[in-house]
Structure formats: C-alpha cells, structure tokens
C-alpha cells in the first residue's frame, strides 16, 4: 500500500476534522480518502478515527501516531526537495590551477554545451583527494602520458627562450661576469614524479647547477620572475601565448603533462558522460590544443 498517500489522507482528515474537508484539502475524492485511511488502519492494526459522531475524532491510537505521521510527511517532502535541488546542482569538477580567463572560457563553453560546471582549482595531489571525499563529482587528475586522455607538451617560456629547446643552453660556465644564473621554474602542477623527475635528471646530465631548477614556487612568483628577468617557466604553449612570452618546446627531455578523469569509487558513473560533451573545452582549458 502507499503509506505516504495514506498518511497524507490521515493527517489532512485529522487537521480538518472531517473526511469531506480533509479529502478536499488533499485534493482527492472523499471515497479515496476513506479508502486510504481504512487501509492505513488495517496496516497499523488499529482504528485511527472514531466515526460514531458526525465530526471525526481521533482515537487514542490515532492521537499517538499522528505526530509520527506528520514527521513522515515532512521527511518525504524534504526528500523530494533535495532531489530537485540535486538535479539542478552544477557538476563540481576539480581542475588544475589556471588563469581566471581560461577558467571563465571553460565555464562558458560548458554552459553553451548545456552543462553547468563548477570548477574547483587545486594542485595535483589535492585533486585526487577531492574526488575521494566527494567534495567534487569529477576530477582531472595528473597521470603519466601513456595513461592519459589529454596530453599537453611542455616547453620553456620566457623573454629569451633557447631555440635549441635544451636545458644545456642555460649553462654559464666559468665566466664570472656573465650575470646571474638563468633558472627554470617548475610549477606546482608539474611537481609530480612523471614530469619533475625526468627534468631533474636532465638538469644534472646537462651540467647545470642544482639551483638552476626551482621546484615548489607558486604560479604568481614564478611568472613574475620570468616576466622581468632572464629565467624560464616550464609550461604548455597556451600559457605562454596568454602572457606574451616566447616559447620553445622542451626537446631534451620531452615531457608531457597527462590528464585523466577520476570519479569517486561509489560515485555516479554517468557523470563521465559530461566529459564526452566537454572534451574540446577541457582540452582548451588544459592547454592540450
């Protein structure tokens, strides 16, 4: 039996004092109201109303269960409200930290494709955590290129990027009057083993000083330094374009950022369908094209 519908009839009749008024307020025919209350009485194993007088009075049993019935109806209403709210929530997507302009373009492209996306920017280590704790429905996590759905080649951006695309171009040698050492800044987004470790090995093999690779500085500090001096930023070509800096692809080593989608293990798998719709917009956001 439909317990909720029966409770609605019961509560409505009880608050209006008659089957006629109660049924009318619940927008059901009186016969239906009567039938539902009777079914509930059978279900609960006791009479809810005393039908002997012309007005309908609650039995002691009816008075006992009325509060619970009201609570049951309130809970059911809240349940329906949540579902409505949840259906209209945007998809929270954990993304790499990028400029405000790139992120805004991504949200706009998503909306144009009919998807309400709420980007949550976070460093690579954090994004996997966010999806695990259900703080986002979907995350773009950093993975090695072979496992990736989107791949982004990295290069050196700066006012004077080395045409050879090799770290060895930054060697200064013994000439002491040659100015400060040029450094390569590696962003937090690339502070992951599959990008950072080959770059460190290449730095050492090319004969650079350890301090010529800066790891762990924030995006603002790195970019500010690269904009005004002779240092270089390891980043995708799209980042260089938006800052007006020159860019050469890194040849030795060839390093790529890789991205793959991640959902919570017990999560709603069809949220991945969102990415099929947004594939091009995500590629633009990541700098993959």
């Amino acid at each position: 039996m439909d317990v909720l519908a029966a409770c609605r009839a019961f509560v409505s009749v009880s608050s209006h004092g008659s089957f006629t008024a109660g049924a009318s307020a619940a927008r059901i025919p009186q016969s239906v109201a009567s039938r539902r209350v009777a079914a509930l009485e059978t279900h609960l194993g006791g009479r809810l109303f005393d039908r002997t007088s012309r007005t309908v009075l609650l039995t002691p049993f009816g008075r006992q269960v009325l509060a619970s019935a009201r609570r049951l109806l309130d809970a059911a209403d809240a349940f329906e409200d949540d579902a409505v709210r949840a259906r209209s929530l945007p998809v929270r997507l954990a993304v790499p930290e990028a400029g405000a302009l790139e992120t805004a373009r991504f949200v706009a492209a998503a909306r144009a494709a009919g998807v309400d996306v709420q980007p949550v920017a976070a460093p690579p280590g954090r994004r996997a955590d966010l999806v695990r704790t259900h703080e986002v429905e979907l995350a773009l996590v950093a993975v090695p290129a072979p496992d990736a759905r989107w791949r982004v080649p990295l290069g050196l951006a700066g006012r004077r990027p080395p045409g050879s695309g090799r770290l060895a171009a930054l060697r200064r040698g013994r000439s002491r009057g040659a100015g400060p050492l040029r450094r390569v800044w590696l962003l937090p987004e690339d502070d992951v083993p599959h990008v950072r470790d080959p770059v460190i090995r290449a730095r050492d093999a090319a004969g650079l000083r350890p301090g010529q690779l800066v790891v762990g500085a924030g995006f603002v500090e790195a970019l500010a330094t690269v904009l005004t001096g002779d240092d270089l930023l390891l980043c995708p070509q799209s980042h260089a374009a938006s800052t007006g800096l020159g860019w050469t692809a890194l040849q030795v080593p060839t390093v790529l950022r890789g991205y793959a989608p991640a959902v919570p293990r017990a999560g709603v798998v069809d949220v991945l369908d969102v990415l099929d719709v947004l594939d091009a917009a995500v590629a633009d956001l990541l700098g993959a094209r």
Partner: protein
Amino acid sequence: MSGPSVVRDARARLRDAGLHGTFLVRDLDDGAEVVVDADEVLPMASLVKVPLAVATLERAARGALDLARPVELPAQATPAGGLAGTVAFRHPATIAVEDLLHLAVAVSDNRAADALFDLTPPADVAVELDRLGIAGIAVRHVVAELSDTVVELLGPERVNLAHTLAIGAATTGIPVTHLDTTRANSCSARAMADLLTALWRPSSIDPSVAQRVRDLMGSSVHRQRLAPDLAADDARWSSKTGTVLNLRHEAGVLELAEGRTLAVVAMTASSVAAAVQPEAEAVMGAVARELVEFLLG
C-alpha cells in the same frame, strides 16, 4: 671581507653547486691559513699517488729500489675505456720505475700506480710516511680498487643511477668501501696541505726527492678543476687531482713570480647525481681563487 665571512661565503657557494667542500689555503712562508672544514677526513682517490711517489723516491734515494729498473706491463685484451695512459695500452710495454712515476702523477695513470704499489705495497708506503713524520694520510689499498665501483658496475648508460646510489650511501649509512674512510685511502685537506708543505719547504723528506715530486706535480695534465682559476704565466700551479664516485679533489701549490707560495687543497663531495660536473668544478676553482685572494690581500 673578514676571515669568517670569506668562509661563510665559500660554504654558501659550494652548497649552491651541490657540493660539500673542505678547503685549506696556506701561505708556506708565514704559515697564515684560511680553512673551510679542513679537518674532515675523506677518501682521497688519486691523491694517494703523491705519497706513493714520495715513498718510492725515498726508497730509491737510500738504494732500496732502482729507478731505472724496467717493469713489464703485459698486453691487455680489453683495456679500460675513457682513460689515458698505460690503462689504455693494448700491447705489452716495458717502462722504468722512474717513468712509471711520471705517468702515475702527471697522467694519473692507475696501472702505472699499481705497478709502483707492487714494488712498495700500501703497508710499506704507510711505514715510509710514518718514518718521515707525515701524519694523517692513511694508505690502505691499491688503486685498481678505485675503478671497481658502482659506476663501473652499472655502466655508462646508468651513471646517473650509480651516482644516486653513491650519494645515498653517505646518508643512509650503507657502507660503500670507496666512501668508507676506515677502509679507503683517506686523509683530510689539512693532512694533504701538511704533505705539500713538507714537499715545498725543507722537511724530513730528502731534498732531491722533494724536487722530483714537485716536478711531477708540475707536469699534471689535469687542468680543468682549479688550474683555470689559479694558473698564469706569473703563477705556477703544480697539483694532483683525485676523482672517485661523487668525490672531486685537487691538492697543489701556487708559486707566484712575486715570491709568495701558497698550498691550496680542495676536497669535495657532491650531492648531484652526475659524473661530469663542469659547473661544480668551476665553483671549486672560484672558491679556491677567493680564498687565495683573501690570503694574499
């Protein structure tokens, strides 16, 4: 700059190049010194060829050894690659003891050095040093063992890995013989400086022996480490380099035409996993220069 600030600056520059360095520069006439952690004992690598030369020549001077004695070096099916001197010879050669000394010191020829160690084993070299009152230099093994490290084991393709292991051994306490100062030939920068002082100034070492060793060191072909920053027409630089795993050393004497003479010893350990480190060597040279300038000033 003051003494302490020169030392602080040196440490900072070495650290910046990934080096832990021990340096000692000493004016051989007035004894003034500038010191950066120079009492720390490190494996000495090829620096051992200098005390080997001293011991061999001392024995020859008292008639226990004939410098003209020919030594047979047999043919080698697979000579060592990437090295110069008799280690790279394929065919048999006969070389006199005196000429082996030249090869051992000037070219840092390991095979020539071990031919000399055959005549004067490490224990006997130690006895000579003791007799001469030269302390702080522990000669324990022959040179061939310097070429038997993880670098040779893993091959040139994995030199990065080999150096990573060697560097890690220092911090994890895993004993790597070549880096174990209780088993490898070892000394401190100060002990080497004392040996150089005994060679360049009157000491218990026979004067003709000292002259010969000075000449051998003046013929060194390895001039990429400190020489670029120290040598000039008016500044004669005589030295011996030493390199094994992540250790890079050079010990020598700078004789200025103006009359001053400085012993310069640099012994370093690198935390960078690369065999070829010109930047680190450039910093060693620059620090040596700074310390020399400080003493001369």
